[in-house]
């Protein structure tokens, strides 16, 4: 049996970030990933490093998000230095566009709550159509206004995943692809992780298998109430850069393609695409930027979000089996810097960061 200091189950956005952090802290780490047959949000997301709208009613999550977004530029630089992979991070602030006065009022309400809750650490501006038009060329007349948050940015999440895996292996981390974990057990203060091919052992185990965490976590005495929420995304042909800032539903990549998203559908474990939803995504994108009508779509896909009951991350530490952790969240790209940094560093010490102590699964049982 091969043994390690730590085993991370799941090589998606969370598992790759944490295992990179553990390897950087010199833990001999194994990263075990199922593969293409699994649901893998890390390969189908929108790539926003997004602060506005995160953590309404949960100041700790809002602060955790800001911390990660603040660390992102340095995180991206470090990955580039280690791997040569440029993850295309930029942070020029982002927009959320409103099409009705009512939407705009609600948006202002949300942004004001986030601002008040953060004691001013969350900054934003509400802009009307004219002010927005100066910043977003080709804005459609149907946009009545929107919010701007200077803390927002975006990145290429596929390059991010590749950079994390490359950096992890460059630090001596052992990657086991095509290895679905079927059973977990605690034996004599250590953990055994079984895949179809082999059994690995370690003193620490971190479950980061996305939607599969729901079934894996109870084997080590933890609860992970995650469920799928589908998003569909379309990508256009590459066109010359015109959109300097990401918006919540349209962003232009450094390569020039436009990502149009993203829907929210509760359809169980079905990651397909449907014509009515794609039509709605295209309609909203062309209301925001009418000239996109002549941009051709080259790809479209569906992917399942790893959603929690209240939309905030769930970070669990097993009380019954110290050394076992389970983590899940919806904003794995945004939080990648926090997961590779403070989250991994604390797990090395056998605990979770104090700042996210309120994000345990126990909260779902509080009266």
């Amino acid at each position, binding site marked *: 049996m091969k043994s390690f200091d730590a085993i991370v189950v799941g090589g998606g956005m969370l598992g790759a970030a944490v295992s990179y952090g553990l390897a950087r802290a010199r833990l001999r780490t194994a990263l075990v990933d199922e593969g293409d047959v699994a649901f893998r949000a890390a390969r189908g997301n929108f790539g926003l490093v997004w602060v506005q709208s995160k953590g309404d009613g949960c100041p700790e999550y809002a602060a955790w998000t800001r911390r990660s977004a603040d660390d992102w530029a340095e995180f991206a630089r470090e990955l580039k230095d280690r791997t040569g992979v440029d993850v295309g991070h930029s942070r020029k602030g982002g927009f959320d566009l409103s099409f009705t006065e009512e939407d705009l009022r609600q948006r202002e309400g949300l942004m004001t709550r986030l601002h008040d809750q953060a004691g001013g650490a969350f900054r934003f501006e509400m802009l009307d159509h004219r002010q927005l038009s100066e910043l977003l*060329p*080709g804005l*459609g*007349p149907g946009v009545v206004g929107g919010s701007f948050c200077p803390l927002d940015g975006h990145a290429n999440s596929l390059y991010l995943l590749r950079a994390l895996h490359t950096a992890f292996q460059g630090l001596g981390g052992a990657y086991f692809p095509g290895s679905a974990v079927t059973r977990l057990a605690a034996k004599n203060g250590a953990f055994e992780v079984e895949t179809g091919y082999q059994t690995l052992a370690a003193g620490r185990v971190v479950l980061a298998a996305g939607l599969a965490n729901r079934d894996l976590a109870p084997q080590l005495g933890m609860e992970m109430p995650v469920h799928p929420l589908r998003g569909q995304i379309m990508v256009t*042909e*590459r*066109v*010359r*850069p*015109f959109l300097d800032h990401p918006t919540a539903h349209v962003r232009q990549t*450094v*390569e*020039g393609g436009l990502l149009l998203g993203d829907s929210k559908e509760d359809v169980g474990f079905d990651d397909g695409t449907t014509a009515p939803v794609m039509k709605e995504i295209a309609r909203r994108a*062309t209301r925001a*930027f*009418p*000239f*996109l*009508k*002549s*941009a*051709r779509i*080259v790809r479209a896909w569906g992917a399942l979000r790893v959603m929690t009951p209240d939309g905030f991350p769930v970070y669990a530490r097993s009380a019954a089996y110290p050394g076992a952790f389970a983590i899940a969240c919806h904003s794995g790209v945004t939080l990648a810097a926090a997961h590779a940094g403070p989250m991994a560093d604390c797990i090395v010490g056998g605990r979770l960061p104090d700042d996210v102590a309120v994000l345990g699964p126990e909260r779902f049982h509080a009266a």
Partner: protein
Amino acid sequence: MLRRIAPQGGIAGVTLYFEGAAVTVPAGTTVAAALLQAGAASFRDTAVTGSPRGPYCMMGVCFDCLVEIDGQPNRQACLTVALNGMRVERQRGAALLDPKAGEGA
């Protein structure tokens, strides 16, 4: 370098214009096959670094065969059948969408 292996006999010819030069191929030939037959190796420059690209997969997945056809940019030459009188140009860098095009719509 490239040689046609299917016999041409009996199939009517169509003529398209690649960067102004006439290229005649049997009806049903794709634009990509026509340009390759005419000796073109690169069809486009990439959007970011401007490096040259030519058809790679010939079946619609790699997007390396992009050309401008009758004024429309980013067309996949391997998925487009050549027609009489088509004007085909190399796709140079990223296509330009005009943000002003939607104004007043």
